[in-house]
């Protein structure tokens, strides 16, 4: 188990270093001068020179990379060129919107998908199964921004249970959670549909396994056999999908954030790109990469917890 952990940690650190190098190369070393790119076509030469000095572009590339890396490790992401505020602070504010939103959406989709997948697999071919499968078909097909607008129409405008958008901050956690509820539902719906299908097919595969027959021969009922022997074995493919979905939910919520006027990471990147604020783009991308890699690490640990064979193989 320890070697497994060690190996995963090594690969985590290596992936992070490689990712940082790639991002750095793409943004700063790629042909073209970042400073003149940020200032646009009509910039004065002296303004460009000033910005170059400010960005530290006159120092050698290696030194710049290490300065950037060590800055990030110590929490200094640099200054946003457009807003003139520390990038770290900007990201932190947005992160506390995007992260809880992603977690809520993930929790929701898992809570829907597990029972739905179990139900459908246990009653394969029945009307219930077909109902669930039809619903997931619909869930995958509906665009989530449209679904988000429908939610706003019904729950914010007609029923007035929720506000139609905006984020009040975490001063009142209940109010904050309430503001995130509709976006989380809108985000969770297609994910839940996909996860339900994965859960169902993973369980159906397991149901055909020999050890499920052994379980029945021991005297377990069909339902007990699924619970005790099927579920854990079906978790591996499901965990893989959950890991992928989390990364997507964290970074890919951009449209939903726009619909609900949420100050999240997606919107931040979007704005930074339109304003050519490379420092912000670079930092947010690195943060997202970090999140994805850490989530993958967590999924790897979860695999090992579920499956003893992975622990042994190291």
């Amino acid at each position, binding site marked *: 188990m320890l*070697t497994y952990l060690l190996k995963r940690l090594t690969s985590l650190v290596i992936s992070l270093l490689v990712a940082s190098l790639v991002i750095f190369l793409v943004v700063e070393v790629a042909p073209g001068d970042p400073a003149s790119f940020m200032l646009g076509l009509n910039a004065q030469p002296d303004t460009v020179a000033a910005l170059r000095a400010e960005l530290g572009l006159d120092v050698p590339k290696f030194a710049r990379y290490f300065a950037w890396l060590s800055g990030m490790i110590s929490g200094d992401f640099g200054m946003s060129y457009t807003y003139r505020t520390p990038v770290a602070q900007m990201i932190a504010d947005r992160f506390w919107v995007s992260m809880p939103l992603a977690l809520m959406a993930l929790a929701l989709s898992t809570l829907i998908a597990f029972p739905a997948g179990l139900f459908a697999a246990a009653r394969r071919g029945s009307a219930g199964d077909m109902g669930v499968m039809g619903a997931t078909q619909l869930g995958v097909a509906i665009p989530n921004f449209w679904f988000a607008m429908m939610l706003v129409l019904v729950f914010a405008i007609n029923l007035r249970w929720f506000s139609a958008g905006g984020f009040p901050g975490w001063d009142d956690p209940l109010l904050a959670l309430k503001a995130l509820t509709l976006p989380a539902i809108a985000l969770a719906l297609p994910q839940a549909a996909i996860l339900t299908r994965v859960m169902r097919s993973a369980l159906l595969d397991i149901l055909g396994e020999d050890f499920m027959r052994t379980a029945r021969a021991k005297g377990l009922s069909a339902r007990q056999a699924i619970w005790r022997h099927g579920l854990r074995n079906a978790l591996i493919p499901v965990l893989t999908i959950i890991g992928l979905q989390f990364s997507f939910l964290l970074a890919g919520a951009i449209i939903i954030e726009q619909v609900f006027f949420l100050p999240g990471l997606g919107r931040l990147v979007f704005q930074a790109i339109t304003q050519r604020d490379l420092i912000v783009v670079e930092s947010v991308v690195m943060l997202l990469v970090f999140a994805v890699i850490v989530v993958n690490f967590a999924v790897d640990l979860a695999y090992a917890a579920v*499956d003893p064979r992975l622990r042994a193989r*190291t």
Partner: protein
Amino acid sequence: MTGSAPSATPMLILDGVNVAIFGKTILKDVSLTLRRKEILALTGESGSGKSMTALAVMGLLPGRMRATGTLRLDGADLLSRTEAQMCRIRGNEIGMVFQEPMTALNPVQTIGDQVAETILIHSAADRRAARTRAAEVLARVGLPQDRFPLGRYPHELSGGQRQRVVIAMAIALRPKLLIADEPTTALDVTTQAQILDLLKSLVREEGMALLMITHDLAVVSDMADRIAVMQHGKVVETGPTCQLFARMEHPYTRQLFAASGHRVSLPPQPSAARPLLEVHSVSRDYPLPRRIPFAPRKTFRAVDNVSFTMRQGDRVGLVGESGCGKSTLTRAILGLEPVQEGQIALDGAPVFSHGRPNPEVRRKMQVVFQDPYGSFNPRHKVGKLISEPFHLLPTKPDTSERRDRIAQALSAVGLSPDDADKYIHAFSGGQRQRIAIARALIIRPELIIFDEAVSALDVRVRAQILDLMADLSRQYRLSYLFISHDLSVVRTITDRVLVMQNGEIVEDGPTGQVYTNPQHPYTRQLLDAAPRLPDITPEMLHVPA
């Protein structure tokens, strides 16, 4: 045979049991009785209804199949039980052991938990007592706690050990009836002998009744008090073992018996032929996974300093238990993988050169695999499937020659040239193996490798394929390497045999001599462990056409 006398009253009675689905008869009028301390063997070929009979007793028939008739366990009618009541009987009064020990256990649960579950599910004891009993019963089946603690996972055990765990699960609550469905078919002969001994002693000492399902008549004759032979869902003959073998009243029984011990007549070996395959001090290492990141890799030597020469027209057998290196050696001979030491040459040319199989040599070698179902692409027609080796030829035959050679190859293996336009799913297992042989023959290779080529076949089909191989040897002067774990088959189809253990060839000699006078202790152990058919008298073998 168990030795002690079975009790008089039947423990299990099947009387006129029928199972049908969509008008298709699965079981027809099956009647059997089984007493305490008795072993009843249910035998027959695949699809004869052996397993379905067992599943009917368990109440675990697949899909919507229902059994009708009378099915009594210790006087109680099983067919009128509800599903909930059957759940209380399964695992408690009836235990069942399955064929595939590698997959019959839940891979993510410890063996202790899985054995204890049988006890807990029937509320026979609290958690601690259940684990104590689990340890006890695992020790009973030969997995003592000091070497096999309850916390072991299935993947840490060998096939035979896993089968012991499955048996422990089945007998944890001392059921009245134990059903074993081909419990040793997937195991090596020495392991098979141990598991059969274990089952026999369980019947004798725990007083169970054992319903044993097997296709292997040699196992049956050694094991059972009584035998029931099944064909097409019916019991065609039943009786005490000795009596049944002595009389064999039903022609099907006689056919099965004859096919089980089938001997072919090989044409004489050509004398003073040139060397064909030369394997010279070959070793093959596999890297093992690193224990610690970046540490140097250790290696596992799967084939260790193996040397032998096959001459043209030689028919050589390679036997050994799983994991002994047979398959690794086969892959090396086929030039699919590089070897770490030594050389392999066919007709003087290396089989593997410049980091890839040598195409010059590859067209002189063909292989027939075990699985007649998995080794064909289901989307291609037979004609295309068997003409695939043409890719190996420097000049590919034109359309008409191609058609002729396909027709020729199909006729050679006893099929019709018209079969070239059919898809593979239209053929039975035996026919598919004929097609596999046709595919191997089509470019007239110098050497054919049969890798467990008859192991998945029913005995009567196996006998036919062996006859076909003998015929083809006569017509084409085949040279082949016949790899198998089945000693009786190797005996009849080869002139010379190599015995492999832990990557080494421990014995190499003329087949008859190795079988009658084995030199190496391992060869003796293998031959002793192999179950034998009872002696055959000529009148027993008389099979009406």
